[in-house]
């Protein structure tokens, strides 16, 4: 009899990707829920069995203890957490408690010939996909693509003995939800001036897309807020369409977008590495292509309203 796999659910957390990844393992899936709405989050992903571990959001240290107890109680083989800062803290403590194998940002799961778990994740700055063999009695993973800011909550105060007390929380201004965007228009150093951003925004409007950028535009130039940055030190996104404008395609950026369904690259340099991860490429100047693309999209909408 195979042992079950558990997925952490919390309000607003979309765990369908985790359930899909576990699907091929032949394990029953249970949800370990945190906070009111955890049951709905499990329902939305088709998980029938939900163990609500806490009715209210709890501190990471408490979550780790509750999850360790639940994992032992149901004798789960695998626990999947969202790939997010707070849950990675929990995963580390949980793995020590359970003496489990532990990896973060896993992209794929399967079983090896001997029945043990195998997991894929990026390493070396996203240049390489590593396949890991996991041969401990339990495994704790965080999985890319199931994080959601609202869902990963912690308690207003933590640490009964006062060693770690949350004294304040200011929600970040969330004007962009890149994780939920179906289409993304991303721009890199090919954009010559911050004053040209309205041209990019116009294209995003015409496509019903969110605007994203590379690290230099957010961190070095400050033309767009950090919340719009895609890549190793920004967001990992998987939209249906990713339109990369004037982005050279350094691996640190590519790691954040290469699992998109359709990737379009526009770059003046035919040797730019972005073309290696693109489905459709145009060697050209974004300043010539973007305005014409906006016009064509607007015409298309007026022709097929």
């Amino acid at each position, binding site marked *: 009899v195979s042992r079950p796999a558990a997925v952490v659910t919390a309000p607003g957390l979309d765990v369908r990707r985790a359930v899909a990844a576990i699907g091929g393992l032949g394990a029953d899936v249970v949800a370990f829920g945190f906070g009111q709405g955890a049951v709905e989050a499990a329902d939305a992903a088709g998980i029938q069995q939900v163990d609500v571990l806490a009715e209210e959001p709890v501190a990471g240290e408490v979550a*780790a203890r509750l999850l360790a107890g639940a994992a032992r109680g149901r004798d789960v083989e695998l626990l999947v957490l969202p790939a997010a*800062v707070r849950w*990675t803290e929990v*995963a*580390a*403590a949980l793995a*020590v*408690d359970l003496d489990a*194998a*532990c*990896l*973060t*940002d896993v992209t794929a799961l399967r079983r090896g010939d001997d029945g043990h778990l195998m997991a894929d994740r*990026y*390493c*070396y*700055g996203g*240049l*390489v*996909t*590593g*396949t*890991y*063999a*996991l*041969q401990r009695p339990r495994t704790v993973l965080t999985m890319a693509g199931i*994080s959601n*800011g*609202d869902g*990963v909550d*912690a308690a207003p105060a933590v*640490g009964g003995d006062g*060693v*770690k007390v*949350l*004294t304040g*929380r*200011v*929600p*970040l201004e969330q004007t962009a939800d890149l994780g939920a965007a179906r*289409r993304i228009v991303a721009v890199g150093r090919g954009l010559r001036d911050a004053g040209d951003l309205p041209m990019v925004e116009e294209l995003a409007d015409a*496509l019903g897309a969110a605007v994203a950028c590379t690290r230099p535009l957010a961190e070095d130039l400050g033309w767009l807020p950090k919340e719009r940055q895609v890549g190793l030190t920004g967001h990992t996104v998987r939209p*249906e*369409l990713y339109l990369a404008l004037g982005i050279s395609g350094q691996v640190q950026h590519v790691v954040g977008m*290469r699992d998109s369904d*359709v990737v*379009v690259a526009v770059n003046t340099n035919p040797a730019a590495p972005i*073309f*290696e*991860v*693109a*489905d*459709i*490429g*145009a060697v*050209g100047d974004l300043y010539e*292509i973007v305005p*014409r*693309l906006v016009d*064509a999209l607007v015409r298309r909408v007026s022709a097929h309203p």
Partner: protein
Amino acid sequence: MRVLTFVKHVPDTTGLALDPVTGQPMLAAAPTKISDYDRHAMEEAARLGQERGAEVVVLGVGPPEAARTLKEALAVGGSEALLVAAPVDGLVDPGATARLLAAAVRRYEPFDVVLCGDVSEDGYHGLVPGMVAALLGVPHVAGVTRLEAEDGGAQVTRTAEDAVETYRIRWPAVLSVSRAINRPRFVTAVQVMKVPMSRVSVYKPGDLGVDEAELAAERQATRIVGLRAAGGRPAAEMLTGSPEEMVDGLLAALARREVLP
């Protein structure tokens, strides 16, 4: 006050090439360096050294060449360094790394704070800081963007996905830092050279009380069995002609793939 830092010696990913025939990363040929995130931790440790007279000790796990990276960290600040010589072939399981680092930390108890980077540039797990904290039974905060030390603890600011949080921490604690915390200073090759190698001690896991057979079994149980070039999309459909023709071709291709609104 005693500050411990973790510093990792990693391949420089920007200089890492893939074998054109096998697609395997040519790790042995890649240049190596200090993991960038750890430079920010070192800078913060050096600041605590200057402002609060803290003693700074640098700890690392890695191959013998990693001693060079620990010397670089000492050039930023710090009195001595301890390298745990691990039989390293590529990436080491974070669990095994954490056990070795926790054993090294215990040699320097009582300590006030461990400072390290949020993640390493090569493995990029972000697990080691939290695992070391759990092994030592002390609190951990990841993603630290601001650290204000006070007597017996600190006020810490960190950014999680959706919020900026502030914590009051009582020492001892493990804090893993974001690259946003500071601008690390540049140290020259000459400054690194001037750090005497005698300030870096090398220990085997057994010297720190870690059972080497158990460690080997642990590594075996969470190991990399294959590396391949990431990406792997078929060659792109390249659009040709004038900008107008390329735009027409693009719209047709997007419509065919059913990704237009």
